[in-house]
């Protein structure tokens, strides 16, 4: 009776669980939805880069004789209220929407990551103050705050996305702060402190690499939110200014023609949906793969 055995339930669960190779990326790439989502993201990135090359028409070229037309050989997805080629506008819109979202994510991470590292690593009054600010920002409805900031800065796509970045910064802050606190408690960090490494060196060499993956997860998920936020702000008139188009601003203009040309509303929304879904799928897949790795270290 002195033998040590696993609780039967645990043993049974282990037995019933499939054994798998546990490298993070191989876990991730085994999921078909994640692979598909990565392919979509790759395609979107290509479209954003190559829009001028692959777009069949100039996205701002008006043709008032062919307004609100359905699909044709010349215009695969039809034309909008000014006779512009919808496909070309969507392709160029990819560049605008993804670029704007990238800016917002960069601002969010640029604010949240360093502050999260500092707060998590140093703790104390700095942590307390920053965490209160993060709580406060998080308790303001995100889009309302973004509108307020963007309005104060003046209406432009850049300002709108700066605002969105500020709104999402506390998300990064929390993730990084939490991971940093965990890492800071590890023996190897104590060892580094004892051997006299500088704080900056420890953060850069030991802490940052270990909070990297949660940050990547957050980047993907925030990218999805940022695309939605860009669309929402553009819809309110805070985003890209005409004649340039983003997916959101295309929707805004199409609303007036909802009855005559519903495709003008449906298409940009569908593109937004697919892009956000792809970012979220990769983010969620990465997070699940991480969670599983952390649960069974072997």
């Amino acid at each position: 009776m002195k033998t040590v055995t696993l609780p039967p339930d645990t043993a049974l669960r282990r037995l019933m669980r499939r054994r798998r190779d546990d490298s993070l990326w191989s876990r991730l790439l085994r999921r078909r939805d994640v692979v598909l989502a990565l392919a979509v993201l790759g395609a979107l990135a290509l479209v954003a880069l190559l829009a001028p090359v692959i777009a069949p028409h100039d996205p701002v070229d008006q043709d008032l004789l062919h307004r609100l037309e359905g699909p044709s050989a010349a215009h695969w997805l039809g034309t909008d209220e000014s006779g512009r080629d919808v496909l070309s506008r969507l392709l160029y819109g990819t560049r605008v929407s993804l670029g704007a979202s990238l800016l917002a994510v960069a601002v969010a991470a640029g604010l949240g990551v360093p502050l999260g590292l500092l707060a998590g690593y140093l703790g104390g009054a700095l942590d307390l103050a920053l965490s209160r600010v993060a709580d406060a920002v998080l308790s303001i409805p995100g889009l309302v705050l973004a509108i307020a900031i963007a309005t104060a800065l003046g209406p432009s796509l850049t300002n709108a996305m700066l605002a969105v970045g500020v709104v999402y910064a506390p998300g990064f802050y929390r993730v990084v702060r939490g991971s940093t606190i965990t890492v800071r408690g590890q023996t190897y960090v104590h060892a580094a402190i004892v051997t006299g490494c500088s704080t900056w060196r420890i953060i850069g060499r030991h802490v940052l690499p270990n909070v990297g993956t949660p940050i990547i997860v957050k980047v993907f998920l925030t990218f999805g939110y940022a695309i939605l936020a860009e669309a929402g702000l553009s819809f309110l008139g805070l985003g890209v200014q005409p004649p340039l188009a983003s997916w959101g601003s295309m929707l805004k203009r199409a609303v007036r023609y909802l009855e005559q040309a519903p495709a003008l509303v449906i298409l940009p929304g569908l593109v937004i949906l697919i892009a956000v879904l792809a970012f979220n799928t990769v983010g969620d897949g990465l997070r699940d793969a991480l969670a599983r790795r952390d649960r069974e270290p072997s």
Partner: protein
Amino acid sequence: MSAVTSAAMSDAMSLDVRGLSIAARAAGGRTVPLVTDVSFRIAPGEAFGLVGESGSGKSMTALAALGLLRRGVAVTAGSVRLGGTELAGPGRAMPAGVRGRRIAMVFQDPMAGLNPAMRVGEQIAEVLRHHLRMGRAAAARRAADLLGEVGIEAPARRARDYPHTFSGGMRQRVMIAMALACEPAVLIADEPTTALDVTVQAQILDLLVRMQDERGMALLLVTHDLGVVAGTCHRLAVMYAGRLVEEGPVGEVFDAPRHPYTAALLAAAPENAMRGTAPKAIPGTVPAPGAYPPGCAFGPRCAHARPGPCDTGPVAMTESDGRRVRCARAPELALPGVPR
């Protein structure tokens, strides 16, 4: 009421486990046997101990009798019957109105076994309301009575408390009251004292035995602790690696175990160690399900194992003078027992 039912209960109301096998579906479509060909019978008024280490399949056997196997684990052969009713068998669902009413169970961990968000009286009352169609007020009164019967002070007031206000021992009393609510014919107690303080363990065992005796129930006491069986049960069965290895009256098995595993368990129990000697640990570990050795599963750890009879082919259960044993060398071994 219990007097009437117990008088009406003949031998036909005994719990009859016959040839029970249980397996888990593992990854890749494999099935892993967890319990193989287990048979025993518990008569009304009888207390029966089912003894084994973790992973021996004893709890699985008990859960199967209540139809509570977890998803992916199923009965593959044999049956569990109560009176004329089949409770479990391959592909069989538990008949309605039996579980909780004619057969009830007390679990190991009373801290986790009670719903934290429901008053304890309500948790007892809902059994009465569901099975006996009692009204709200009557069920509440009966619940308080039951709490009193299992030794909880000020039961009417305590019935309105939430589980977190009870100690572990008190919670186990609540669990017992809940199990007894519908006067079941069979009570299964799975390690009912393992999670409790030593001082409380004896009280809970006394309560179980008293209730079993007063109500003429069949009691299946599942435990890893032979000491628990010694003071409470009439008969016992020992399980190892999913099979019964020995079965018989408690006194006889303790006096003269016939299976080396039983003897080793007896020798390993601290309270049975000779004065001044350490309890003897059994070398090695219990084989994992799916990795049982050929022949006698206990063979690799057995001090009496011999090449030939013990490591080839399955070892059959033999029966003589009311005792059963699954050991190829049983007739030639004279194993030491312990005085009870």
